């Protein structure tokens, strides 16, 4: 593990969603994005910027940074990159990140929508693949942009054997760190991951919304809408359980929770 990976590892990743394409007030949304980004980086956390999350068209993080001329530490930025792009667009994003000094990317399959194009196997030089998954995306980035450190997702709710095999493919394609799906307690699959892949940088996603039921699709069973959930307490607990891991905070409330997180760190 090199020095920068270690730092990433002990960090909080704070998820930031760039303004949507359908934004009613683009400038206001951009300013909000900028203020969140700056705050996260000032706190010494890593800003994790999503890529058309849930298939909803949004502007790209690098565009926002470039357009606003934000002076931020690029080492504190992780961009998500999914398989719903044209190859031209994918190259543009990666080239722009190179210019900005951003060197961390989370390669995921992602969510499509009718408006989003999908990478084809031929685009990324994997003619034999049936479709482009994160594995093909990783190989492509590794080959053409070797400067990037590539992270991948890990889902403890998928069939275990299948998920570990997929992880192996992702790692051998060139991934070097992992961000998991959210957990709310000690998780045997995560334990196995930490045990079997000692030395691999693992960041655990902590669910920072009180609406736990939104995770129903992720965990694969219905969570009642009125389920009691305390995100901050859960995060505290997880940090105790997994002191060696960093935490990825999704849906963090900047008004209500951010100060508490800063204190915690």
């Amino acid at each position, binding site marked *: 593990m090199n020095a920068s990976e270690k730092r990433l590892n002990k960090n909080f990743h704070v998820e930031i969603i760039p303004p949507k*394409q359908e934004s009613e007030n*683009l*400038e206001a949304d951009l300013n909000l994005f900028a203020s969140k980004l700056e705050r996260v980086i000032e706190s010494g956390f890593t800003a994790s910027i999503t890529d058309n999350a849930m298939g909803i068209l949004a*502007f*790209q993080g690098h565009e926002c940074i470039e*357009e606003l001329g934000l002076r931020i530490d690029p080492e504190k930025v992780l961009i998500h990159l999914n398989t719903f792009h*044209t190859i031209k*667009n994918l190259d543009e994003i990666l080239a722009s990140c190179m210019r900005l000094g951003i060197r961390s990317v989370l390669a995921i399959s992602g969510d499509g929508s009718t*408006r989003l194009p999908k990478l084809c196997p031929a685009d990324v030089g994997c003619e034999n693949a049936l479709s482009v998954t994160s594995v093909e995306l990783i190989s492509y980035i590794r080959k053409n942009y070797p400067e990037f450190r590539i992270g991948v997702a890990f889902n403890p709710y998928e069939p275990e054997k299948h998920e570990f095999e997929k992880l192996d493919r992702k790692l051998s394609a060139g991934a070097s760190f992992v961000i998991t799906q959210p957990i709310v307690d000690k998780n045997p699959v995560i334990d196995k991951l930490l045990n079997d892949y000692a030395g691999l940088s693992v960041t655990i996603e902590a669910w920072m919304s009180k609406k736990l039921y939104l995770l129903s699709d992720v965990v694969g069973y219905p969570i009642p809408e009125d389920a009691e959930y305390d995100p901050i307490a859960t995060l505290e607990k997880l940090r105790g359980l997994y002191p060696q891991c960093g935490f990825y905070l999704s849906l963090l409330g900047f008004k209500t929770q951010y100060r508490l997180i800063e204190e915690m760190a």
Partner: protein
Amino acid sequence: MKIVVCIKQVPASNDAKIDPETKRIVREGSKAIVNPFDLYAIEEAIAIKERTGGEIIALTMGPEKAKNALKEALSMGVDRAILLSDRAFGGSDTWATSYALAKAIETIGDVELILCGKQAVDGDTAQVGPGIAEKLNARQAANVWKVEKIEKRSVTVKRINERGWDLVRLQYPALLTVVKDINTPRIPKLRDALIAEKAEIPIWKPCDVGADPDLIGLKNSPTQVVRTAPPAARNAVTLKIDCKPEEASDRFVKELLKRKLI
């Protein structure tokens, strides 16, 4: 080359929900989007302009909020946009709409190429494109999936049909309606979206385009809606087969035979 792209703002279709009683789709939500087929027309216009140079004008008819559709076209790369909007246009059917749009295109002047999506996904009529073409005395090709050649006086395209495709050459002015397969519409860049946000979009009224008030709007449209009704319910009972593959297949084939489907 001067190109006009005609677009339409349509309601977005959201997640599919099925009414358990009628087994029909329940539509909800009223978010407005650019008609998906029109995005291909916009992209193709940009691709043609990249080859030939010239100017692209996006044109739509609709209420004030249809400006958002034009802004999306601008952020994709069209040069300017015009909104045809007035109460007098309200309720126009496809004939009256084609007439109004054709008048606007005449007003723009010297237009060689007009691009439209194959059809709008709300009405599904595919009538406005050919309607405009006729009114402008323009040649037309519907369901174009490839623009083969752009020449000084003509455009050569492939249009698909049920059996294959035709190669056709159209002298200008020509109107093409395009299908999905023709290209991959670009996603607007932030910088272009910010510029589009500030763009001035002129609103044209009937008098600005010299439209005869007796030929536009609901009252003057040849077609009139007499009534609307919910569609007949689909077969409301779902036969569920949930057993081992051998047994399931056997039950299924027997069911098809029973229903005389094979």
